[in-house]
């Protein structure tokens, strides 16, 4: 794909060892940026691009995260892609599960941003991008902590944008639609369920991890220097339509 040039930029990506996170790291590296990926599991990063360095760290441990950042130099871009999900009914959802999800998905977003602000390069516009989710605005059975944490991320994007603009840092979010990862395997491996879900998406398919690279590069480049406090939905149109009315017959007639 034709791309945007981020040569000479340093990007820190939390959750860079995850499926979406690593695709974003590859996208940033492909656009010329050097990438530091923070993750509890860096297996995917080892042996990959020499422009992506992995640091193994438990992002729910704020002190450990601070230590992990000591070796990181001047930063241009911070992408918070770390996210976990625990699903259970309300009656079965325990406090430990709630805290685990919130610590990784939301708390680490704030404290990583706080820790990285002094490291942002001056003289150019810095970029912070949180990977949120369309579930910040839609309900899903059992995803109580996940959806609430993503809603919190959206709010944090807006709030950080108001304060960090004075430091020439734009803060935005990307809300992926349902993306083919291990987290959604139960959906896309079941052909019937997957087809029913795809029928609610105007573009007729679930997202691939790579679909989120283009919006990320836009939000990390000079192209978006007047864009801050925004959430970009990358969902094939899922959240912009009344799902019942996506005309699958039209699509099938066109295939």
């Amino acid at each position: 794909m034709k791309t945007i040039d981020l040569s000479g930029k340093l990007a820190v990506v939390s959750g860079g060892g995850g499926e979406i996170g690593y695709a974003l790291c590859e996208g940033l590296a492909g656009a010329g940026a050097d990438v530091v990926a923070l993750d509890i599991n860096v297996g995917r990063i080892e042996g990959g691009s020499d422009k992506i360095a992995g640091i193994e760290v438990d992002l729910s441990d704020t002190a450990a995260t601070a230590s992990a950042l000591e070796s990181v130099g001047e930063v241009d871009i911070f992408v918070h892609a770390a996210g976990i999900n625990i699903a259970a009914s309300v009656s079965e959802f325990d406090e430990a599960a709630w805290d685990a999800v919130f610590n990784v998905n939301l708390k680490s977003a704030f404290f990583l941003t706080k820790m990285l602000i002094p490291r942002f390069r001056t003289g150019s516009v810095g970029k912070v991008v949180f990977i949120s989710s369309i579930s910040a605005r839609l309900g899903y059975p059992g995803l109580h902590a996940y959806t609430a944490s993503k809603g919190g991320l959206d709010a944090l994007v807006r709030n950080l944008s108001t304060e960090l603009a004075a430091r020439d840092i734009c803060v935005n979010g990307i809300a992926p639609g349902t993306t083919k990862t291990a987290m959604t395997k139960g959906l896309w491996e079941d052909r019937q369920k997957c087809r029913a879900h795809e029928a609610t998406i105007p573009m007729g398919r679930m997202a691939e991890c790579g679909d989120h690279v283009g919006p990320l590069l836009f939000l990390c480049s000079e192209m978006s220097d007047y864009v801050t406090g925004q959430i970009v939905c990358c969902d094939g149109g899922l959240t912009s339509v009344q799902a019942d009315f996506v005309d699958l017959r039209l699509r099938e007639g066109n295939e």
Partner: protein
Amino acid sequence: MSKLLDGEVAIITGSTSGMGEAIARRFAKEGAAVVINGTNEERGSRIEYEIVKEGGNAAFFKADVSSASEVEAMVEFALGKFSKLSVLVPNAGILGNGLATEITLETWDKTIGVNLNGVYYLCRYGLPKLIEAGGGKVVVNASIASFKSFPQHPAYCASKGALIPFMKNIAQDYAVHNIRANALCPGPVDTPLIWDSVKAFPNADSIIEETIGMTCVGRLGTPEDVAEAAVFFASDQSSFITGASLTIDGGIMT
């Protein structure tokens, strides 16, 4: 590096000044052939000349977008000139300001005619050509006025408000044809239009400074800021995004 819009052919309405002009110039730099549109021949021809002189591909077509037949002729012109059409950027807009009870019916009709009907006409005649091309992109230039009111801007706000659901409808109905539709929602951008807009405010002398103070980033937007976002929506960078609105406002709505 390859350009983001190589091989695209775009019509940008209202592109003889302001954001439309910036979008046309930026699209041409990214490799797209552009049809420049407006009613001022002198400015349109000059922009065409300057883009071509810099190695771009551009042609001016004079048309009033509130006229369906003129928009239809412009679409045919694009086909004749560049052999295909793949990007529609309905951008033309006018203010039609005044209190709702005081503007003339003609002002109301003209504002809706340019800002809303003009968008519809470009889609009405342009979308079949995008389908013929195997797909394409619609980038509607709406406004933060789609979401909030401004003093004495009733026709403007109403027309811009209508653009978002219209865009979503295009996104829904034409996704099957590999067409994506999205909207730009610029905030305070330094164009000729904003300086006319402030005249309708009771605090016209100070509103620009106050507005700058209300943005997070402490400045007016530039037409180029908006053009960058238009490139994003017209390019494959946004290939899984449709039905979306992007606010380009320095954080004033945050």
